[in-house]
């Protein structure tokens, strides 16, 4: 039974990753999950310098989902290399995908160049879709021209394969996927969070200090599956699917729709072993359905 998948030349032992920003760099969850069993650790977004993020409250629950407005708090790429990448050295079986954020093209490039010679970095995920920062982030991800340009620019500076992370807050995700492909992306990942809002009716004020937040969790899964499906049928680069994956069924659904690998985000918060539970669910499904190679189900529902 073959569970390994190949994305842009990088071989992942299985298709199950966790989603950026929900797992730190793995340290905090290593008490619950043997990181060596993950397809990849996808790190929290890393910028050129430390970012303080947004004021609190940053988190609120919505039905079958949550809103977050962390605002990409991160210690900067220097600390990240010295601490987080060093920590990840010990997990040889697992690939490392570093999620990269920036306010400007220059900032993305600075991070990408700093990471170029870090051997522990197998792939870069370029976050052009964070709805929680004022500049950069989503601004790059909502116009096809901008997506193509930033992709081309980052690609020309990157040593590792690049995955462009797309925003679902768009009229036509296919156009964005094609723009990323045209810009030279090695793969795309989707979806980032959907912009939402919650108002406290007693206090008559926003629940989040940032007013809006990114919605994630099981509630967004049907939208994510639809978008992965649309992209899979529009581009020929591989897709890492995410958005509300909570059970192995959700993961298989995403793969049937066209994702080569899947990331698990919010589910970690209510089930710290979600990634492992999903992986074993996928394996059971393969046995039951007599699937020799997980790649054989990718995108077969058309």
């Amino acid at each position, binding site marked *: 039974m073959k569970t390994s998948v190949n994305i842009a030349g990088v071989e992942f032992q299985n298709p199950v990753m966790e989603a950026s*920003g*929900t*797992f*730190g760099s793995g*340290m*905090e*969850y290593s*008490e*619950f999950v043997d990181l060596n069993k993950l397809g990849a650790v996808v790190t*929290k977004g890393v910028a050129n310098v*430390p*970012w*303080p*993020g947004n004021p*609190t*409250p*940053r*988190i*609120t*629950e919505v*039905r*079958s*989902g*949550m809103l*977050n407005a*962390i605002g990409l*708090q991160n*210690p*900067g790429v220097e*600390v990240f290399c010295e601490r987080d990448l060093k920590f990840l050295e010990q997990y040889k079986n697992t690939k490392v995908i570093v999620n990269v954020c920036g306010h400007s093209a220059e900032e993305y490039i600075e991070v990408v160049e700093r990471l170029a010679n870090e051997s522990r970095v197998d792939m870069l995920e370029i976050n052009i879709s964070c709805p929680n920062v004022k500049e950069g982030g989503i601004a790059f991800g909502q116009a096809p021209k901008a997506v193509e340009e930033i992709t081309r620019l980052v690609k020309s500076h990157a040593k590792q394969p690049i995955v462009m992370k797309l925003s679902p807050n768009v009229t036509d995700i296919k156009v964005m996927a094609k723009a990323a492909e045209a810009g030279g992306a090695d793969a795309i990942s989707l979806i980032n969070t959907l912009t939402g809002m919650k108002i406290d009716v007693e206090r008559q004020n926003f629940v989040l200090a940032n007013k809006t937040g990114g919605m994630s*969790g*099981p509630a967004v899964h049907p939208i994510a599956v639809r978008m992965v499906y649309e992209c899979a049928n529009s581009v020929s680069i591989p897709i890492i699917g995410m958005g509300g994956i909570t059970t192995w069924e959700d993961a298989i659904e995403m793969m049937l729709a066209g994702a080569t690998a899947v990331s698990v985000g*919010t589910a*970690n*918060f*209510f*089930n*710290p*072993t979600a990634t492992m539970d999903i992986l074993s669910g996928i394996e059971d499904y393969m046995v039951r359905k007599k699937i020799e190679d997980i790649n054989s189900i990718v995108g077969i529902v058309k």
Partner: protein
Amino acid sequence: MKIKETAKVLNQSKLAEGIFSLTIATTASEYAIPGQFINIFSKDASNLLPRPISICEIDKAAGTLRMVYRVVGKGTTEFSSLKAGDTAEIMGPLGNGFPLEGEKAIVVGGGIGVPPMLELAKQLPGSVTAVMGYRNDDLFLSEEFTDVASDLIIATDDGSVGVHGTVVDAMVENELEADVIYACGPKPMLRAVAQYAAEHNIKCYVSMEERMACGVGACLGCVCQSKDVDDHSHVHNKRVCKDGPVFLSTEVVL
């Protein structure tokens, strides 16, 4: 060591209007210290996020934890209907807990900040003055402090019992002195207690609260502002769930 498990409910009782006491059997009790909290999960799948509740009592011999909480929303309403024999999905113990210090300690609890002080008062090495603030004469848990604290001072907002005013009014009135103060309660209370501590040159630990998602330090949802650049974040943020909930009053912005 943190546990995620299905714990067994041993007992639940109502202490006052909207205030419940829940005792569960859980292996998390083996690792728990005062000031830590556990996450309790809702059985309703539409309520994704855990509810953080402080540990009020630890019985390692019996393998149990006790939590005391106020019903304020969907999760706590659900928990309030748990009965002996039911199960509860929990994760814990989480956070750092209170360092046990001093020969003379003051423990200060305000409202639903009272419960974590009970186990703390039990375990503190020195003498303990407990200062407990309530809205009115619904003095839940206060009796239980009489056994574990050397002194018990009550303050009520409406003046129905004890000092009419805040816990700090009570501390001022009683001219309390100590090596160390431990406080849990609403932010304005923590701020006032920290100021009292600073003025009297007493070391002060405060237990903070913030909206949480992961509870283990991964999501950066629950930060509070730190006075100095923090070692982990490299910005002026500390994670309440992991670096706290207990901080030195001088480390954080209150």
